[in-house]
């Protein structure tokens, strides 16, 4: 009898132990104050293409509050310069993320291996100048494949669930045309279709087909340095996984934009990746100030954020048909009562970034 009680006691303690163990993640309030200074942030991306263009954004650092929007900055002039001393005065209008074409008329010769820099003269007359950034060689075009896979994860109720995921796999070369190992940054977009649910109360249904564009995880930076790897190709490289849901009900496109990066641009994006990937684990490195390749030539000590680089962008499309992923059901069709449908099920144009214009790559 004693032994029986004894074992019960032990079992109880062990059970308590098993119930108790877990790591936890909580949102907390932390006294993190925004910087009083709002340094200037200059971002420029010179893209070789047809046509070539430069993407520009000149603003000030935003604070930490939700309602603090990015602030554009007026400047006296913005000049793009190549390594041969050719200068092109960009007709900059104050704004964030504005694109300007760079064609032959600008005098700037766009070619892989050549270097460029961006200069900004502020309203105070100070010159902020980037270092020269080389336009890297590109590599052979990507090809994509995909496969279905199952993953287990915890849902919002912290129950373990299993779901189908589409795993997109990449096939690409690692060496540039001149034989050097390349550095990349990948950005992901998707296009999927939404179709209005027919209104049973009308004899003239006006259903639309909408194409919705999405940036996939813009805060998830994917960079790759071929110098850290061996071989000349990436084969079946698992690049991205997407859960199978109603977005796949009428077809789905994954669009991969691959930027070729110089060593400097790679270092910049790799630092951005590190500050965005932080999850507090034992092994991560401390957060730090991301480097900039801009310097105020009049006041070198001035803090400036942002980066200028030159790149080529390759775009690859991968279509996934409904049948490829088990014909998922459109969630809007599961609600029988039309009046209870969300607005976006009745009018797909209310979905952000949707259009009824079929993209040219859509089959």
């Amino acid at each position, binding site marked *: 009898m004693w032994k029986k009680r004894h074992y019960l006691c032990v079992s109880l303690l062990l059970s308590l132990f098993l119930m108790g163990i877990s*790591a936890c993640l909580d949102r907390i309030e932390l006294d993190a104050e925004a910087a009083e200074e709002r340094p200037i942030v200059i971002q420029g991306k010179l893209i070789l293409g047809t046509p070539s263009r430069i993407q520009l954004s000149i603003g000030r650092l935003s604070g930490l509050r*939700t309602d603090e929007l990015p602030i554009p900055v007026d400047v006296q002039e913005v000049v793009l310069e190549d390594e041969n001393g050719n200068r092109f005065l960009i007709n900059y209008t104050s704004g964030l*993320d504005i694109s300007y074409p760079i064609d032959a008329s600008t005098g700037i010769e766009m070619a892989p291996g050549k270097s460029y820099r961006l200069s900004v003269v502020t309203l105070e007359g100070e010159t902020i100048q980037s270092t020269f950034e080389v336009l890297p060689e590109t590599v052979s075009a990507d090809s994509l494949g995909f496969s279905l896979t199952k993953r287990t994860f915890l849902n919002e109720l912290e129950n373990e669930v299993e779901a189908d995921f589409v795993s997109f796999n990449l096939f690409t070369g690692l060496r540039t045309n001149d034989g050097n190992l390349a550095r990349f940054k990948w950005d992901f977009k998707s296009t999927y279709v939404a179709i209005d649910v027919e209104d049973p109360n009308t004899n003239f249904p006006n259903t639309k087909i909408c194409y919705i564009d999405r940036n996939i995880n813009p805060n998830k930076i994917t960079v790759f340095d071929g110098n850290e790897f*061996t071989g000349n190709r990436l084969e079946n490289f698992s690049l991205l996984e997407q859960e199978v849901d109603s977005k796949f009900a009428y077809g789905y496109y994954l669009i991969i934009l691959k930027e070729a990066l110089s060593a400097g641009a790679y270092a910049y994006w790799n630092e951005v990746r590190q500050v965005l990937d932080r999850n507090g684990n034992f092994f991560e490195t401390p957060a730090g100030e991301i480097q900039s390749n801009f310097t105020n030539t009049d006041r070198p000590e001035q*803090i400036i954020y942002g980066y200028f680089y030159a790149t080529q962008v390759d775009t690859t499309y991968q279509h996934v048909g409904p049948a490829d992923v088990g014909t998922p059901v459109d969630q809007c069709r599961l609600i029988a009562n039309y009046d209870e449908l969300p607005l976006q099920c009745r009018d797909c144009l209310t979905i952000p970034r949707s259009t009824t214009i079929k993209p040219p790559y859509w089959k």
Partner: protein
Amino acid sequence: MRSHLLGLCLMLVCIHLTSLVQGQSLLDTPISGEYNNQSLDRILEDIDNRYPVQIYAPDSLLAAKPVSYSFTGQPLKEVLTQLLEQTSLVFMTYRDYAVVIGQADVIGKERSAGFYQSLDQVLLSEEKSDDDLPIVGNIRQLNADGTALIEGTVKDASSENPLAGVTIFAPAAAIGTATEADGEYTLALPPGKHLLQLNFVGYETLEMEVELLGSGRLDFEMDKQAIRLDEVVVSSQSVEANVSNVQIGVTRLDMKEIQKLPTFLGEVDVVRTLLLQPGVSTIGEGATGFNVRGGQADQNLVLQDEGFIFNSSHALGFFSTFHADLLSNVTLYKGNIPAQFGGRLASVLEVEMRDGNFEKYKAKGSIGPVSSSISFEGPVKKKKSSFITGFRSTYSDWILQRINVPEIKRSSSFFYDLNLRYTHRFDPKNSLILSAYATRDKFTFDEQFGFQYQTFMGQAIYKKIFNDRLFSRLSLTASQYDSDQLDLEGIDESTLENSLQYWKLKQQISYTPTELIKLDFGFSSILYRVAPERIEPTGSQSIVRPSSTERERGLESALFVNANWNISPALQISGGLRLSIYQYLGSKTILTYPEGSPFTLANSNGSTQEEGVIASYVRPEPRFSLRYKLSKRSSVKTGYSRVTQYINQMSNSTTPTPANQWQLSTSYILPQQGHNLSIGYFQNFKDNNWETSAELFGRYIDQLADYKNFAELAINDHLETELLRGVGRAYGLELSIKKQTGLFNGWLSYTLSRSEREVPGINRGEWYVSDIDRLHDVSVVTNIQFNQRISLAFNFNYNTGRPTTPPTGRYRGLNGEIIPVYSARNQARIPDYHRLDIALTVGKGYNRTKKIRTSWTFSIYNVYARRNAFSVFFTQPALSAPVANQLSVLGSAFPSIRFNLETF
């Protein structure tokens, strides 16, 4: 010689005459008493007790046969005559209060001068007996030559192993001896009060005043603090080490007390106990290592006997690698480090293993929910050689499988450690210790990544006692630490390997030229060999490019001398010098930089292949400590030490990972150097049962390195390009109050401190708090010892949250990314940490005749399930402000149970 003999004879005659003159009145003392069937001894004792007469008679001479007598007011002389008439004994009087009984042919003849001198001392001692002093023997056991023969054993207080070669010295009599192989000693001393000094290499000098009345037994236990007297103890003497020890900033753990403290998952742990001491902290639960007075984890020299351990953590950092059942002493020097130690800036943790039992076989073990341990010890050849071995291992995977997190389910954790120690005593003065130590850990997470690391260490220690004043300890250590970081899937599947070997030779000699001065001097030499850091692809899909760094070698030698001088009973000083000599050895390819330019790859103007000694540093490191006793129970102490560190762990993460490589000082990575200064007041109360202390400490690091933002440390042959040079400082106040014994015992410690750095290139070159800065740190440890079987212990720990770096702004990238800006390091703090633990120990009883003793330890770690933050990180939800998230490694209460077993 003749004059001495003449003097003795004259003295003898005088004593005789004196006794004859003064003895008349004493012998007339009327005696009454009824004695039926009692021994002569008892009858004399009764007379001694009831009348103003002291009777001395050796027990061995008195017949045990019972006799019967009846006295009614008879003079003492007549009574004694009657009692002794059937024996060969006679009596004589001494002064006006004593009677001495002895053999007729001895009394007044053999060595009587010494005898009577001693007798005089004994009798005077009895008159003036100090109740505070332990008394050895009684007047009946005085030797005929007037000396008292003390016998006894000197043991290690923790392990109760006998200690061979301990010197026992009585300065006033200038007489000393040393313990034999079995720890036994004999010492002949004249009766009276004597200060006995016990010295043994590696042990605290023990000083004890005893009152010697006659021959008897006096056992000592040498350890950190306790002195115990058995059998002949009249009154125990409480410890005074807190007040009398000259070294400031020293913490010693009582291995018996450790067993009673609450533990995490039932595992008794040395390092976790250290964390409850003032000035010792950790980054968080699961963090590797510990931090002392604002120092980094790699600034602690962790020694197991003579060998240092580069990674003393199991399961990343949840447990330490020390098997508590095998240890005899654990000492932490928190700043003022004696000259025989060196090579680290912050502290020395000296963990000493004990010898196996030389008499009999013993076993000890414990079983807990995640780990078990077992140890065996016993003689190889009785009294000559012994062994002790211990093994610990975990089986925690069954718990991981039950955690409702898929990633954890796909994880595993395993470790073991193994110790083996063989001790051989060639003779009482020569002994050899051979020991081996091995640990291994493997940890994988979500079948994605993992670590595995292992340490192998072998040691040979030869101890020689030349004479009572001169000891030698020669040691040779060889060790290898290997660590692998595992990437377990995809194209990254690879192993990043690190390995570090060292060979260490150390000779330490302890010399005590006088009873007031003790010298420790010697040399040590360590040859480091850092194997090439290597990354290798492992899976078929892996495209990781194999690469490696060059190997590195360094030779760190030191000459040291440390003197301990008792200038007066109140004033004791300890001073020393360590001259460290370090050489960075080739061959090695090193980058060259224009003079004065920062070390960056862009600035490098080439490389050269260097051979031989590439860089050399000689650093004199003075050490000094002083203790001044204000009273018997209070003292002030101060200390200073200059320290240099030639090897550092390259870690830029929240806590060092097992795979972080160790980097030797080079031409560009200069040795770290620091000044440590402490001053404190120490006061004991209530017969030393209460110890209090207040210590102010300061450390100035005039040469340190910190990491650039996003430093790339792996497979980097030119780590100087990732480092920035600067200075650092740590300062604070440590308060401690401790109650040693009683129903309630334990301690309270509080530390108020700062740890800061100034590094050009970080935070605009301004001072900033280091990652391990803790403004407040409080620990309360309470042990309720209901009886010998049951004890209940509580720990409470509170400390200020450590610094973290928050974002100060953000901007939107060209692709819609919201990029946070972290402009300055450590400008915010994670939430404060606090935790309560409880442990109930039930078992070990009074019955020492049992062959096996068992006990149970029930404990709850983190009783109120506080979700203490290990780290804080910031995420950027769409269309909203950055959010702070806290990661709590242990977010719940952790009950555990442990079964302990010990054979005797």
